[in-house]
């Protein structure tokens, strides 16, 4: 599903974020990428949806080599990958429904299809009762669930979650992780970038550990070791 082959990323003037990283994530896997701040976790995650380009190496997503992806093809890639961030990235003047529908609107999906899909994904994240609320009227966990719902509207095969629990308390963190596990059980490959020890240890899933831009361990059913 995801092939990262000998990827390096160097930012000018000479800051190495990733150094010869290679990994393969199979379809349907739930993989945690862990590491201290500044070890290149987010850079690696961003390469999976072409937000960053490698300085060296190749990135292949679902058989599509996106290393040198053309700007015009990036939207097509992004409609196949769901992305969740720590800072939610919700539009404050739009309701829950409108925020989720926005992802479909900009892709040219018709209003009838939007009215079908949005309630479905809001049911998955258990927000069907709050469709008319604005982000400011929701808790942090609920806001993150809206973001996850939005990332699901295109029925992505891959979901990349970059520190999705970074702004949440313990209860909401568990809610979000449970939701990610549920999405994974539906068959979506989940890549979770985190430095939350408790989350990683509770998952009992594959853990890839980064240190100074390099993979230092890759363990099936791993634990947070740093």
């Amino acid at each position, binding site marked *: 599903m995801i092939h990262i082959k000998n990827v390096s990323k160097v930012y000018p003037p000479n800051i190495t974020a990733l150094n010869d990283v290679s990994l393969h994530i199979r379809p349907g896997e739930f993989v945690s990428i862990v590491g201290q701040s500044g070890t290149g976790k987010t850079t690696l995650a961003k390469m999976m949806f072409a937000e960053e380009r490698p300085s060296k190496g190749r990135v292949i997503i679902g058989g599509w080599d996106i290393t040198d992806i053309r*700007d*015009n093809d*990036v*939207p*097509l*890639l*992004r*409609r196949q990958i769901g*992305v969740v961030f720590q800072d939610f*990235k*919700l*539009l404050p003047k739009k309701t829950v429904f409108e925020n989720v529908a*926005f*992802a479909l*609107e*900009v*892709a*040219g*999906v*018709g*209003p009838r299809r939007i009215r079908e899909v949005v309630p479905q994904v809001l049911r998955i994240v258990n927000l069907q009762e709050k469709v008319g609320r604005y982000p400011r009227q929701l808790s942090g966990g609920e806001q993150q669930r809206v973001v996850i719902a*939005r*990332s699901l509207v*295109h029925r992505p095969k891959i979901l990349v979650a970059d520190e999705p629990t970074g702004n949440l308390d313990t209860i909401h963190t568990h809610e979000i992780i449970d939701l990610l596990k549920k999405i994974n059980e539906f068959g979506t490959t989940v890549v979770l970038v985190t430095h939350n020890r408790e989350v990683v240890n509770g998952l009992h899933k594959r853990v890839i550990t980064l240190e100074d831009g390099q993979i230092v361990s890759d363990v099936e059913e791993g634990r947070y070791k740093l």
Partner: protein
Amino acid sequence: MFILAYRVVKFALQNFWRNIWLSLITVSMLVLTLLSVNVLIMLNAVGQKAIAYVEDRVEVSVYFNADVTDEKVADAAGYLQGLSQVRNVGIITADEALDKFKTRHAADTAILQSLDEIDGNPFGPTLVIKAQDVDAYPFILDALDNPQFRDDIREKDFTSYEEIISRIESTTERIRLFGLGLSLTFLLIAILIVFNTVRIAIFIHREEIGIMKLVGASNGFVRAPFLLESIIYGALATGIVAALMYPTVAFLEPKFDLYFDGQSTGLVSYFVENGWIIFGGQFLVLSLINVLSTMVAMRKYLKV
């Protein structure tokens, strides 16, 4: 496709409305630019009318000797009428000339008495010639040196108006240059304002743009609302200027007409007949400039 177009329009109108004050400033500047252009067009039309009005008054009066017969004068008139450069030839007979003179000096008894002392009519027949074009008068004057008529002609009186015409032309030209400079200045400011408006709009919507890109909006879809918004500025400005110009011209026309002995300057009909070309052309040029300015701003500030 239709749905995407509808959403581009929706987002463009949302952008316009959410930054209403910025939008109003931009449109106001474009209105000023177009107003100066239209005032220029109006003054140009009035200047052309003034020149045509003066040119229409240019004529050559050819005074024949008192003993020249009416037949000879009619021959000369026929000869001149045959020239392509001549628009109109009027004949004033000796009797008509005398009557006109008496009428003109009816209050001056001394002149009328001295006229009585002269035995008979001292006036000869007169031809009043108007040319097709003001430049044709030298040719017509030369034509009258024809030996057939030369000895019968007592005097040729050519009121040239050349100086007046050249003064009108130079004034019109000066106004045109000044107006052009003013329009270009306004245009330059308008371009900078449109550029700045788009820059600020991109800054205000940076979060929304980031999310659009994140969820898979195409680059064209992200850019299109900004381009459309710049066209909306042009359309609004042109509409406002057109709405201002027609009543203004209708109000000014009678005042201009007074300078032309009540003859209509035809300003309103000029703007009505050429409205689509004048305002349509202004809309197209303005929109093109706005779109170019927006494209430069997007290239610089909108990373998609």
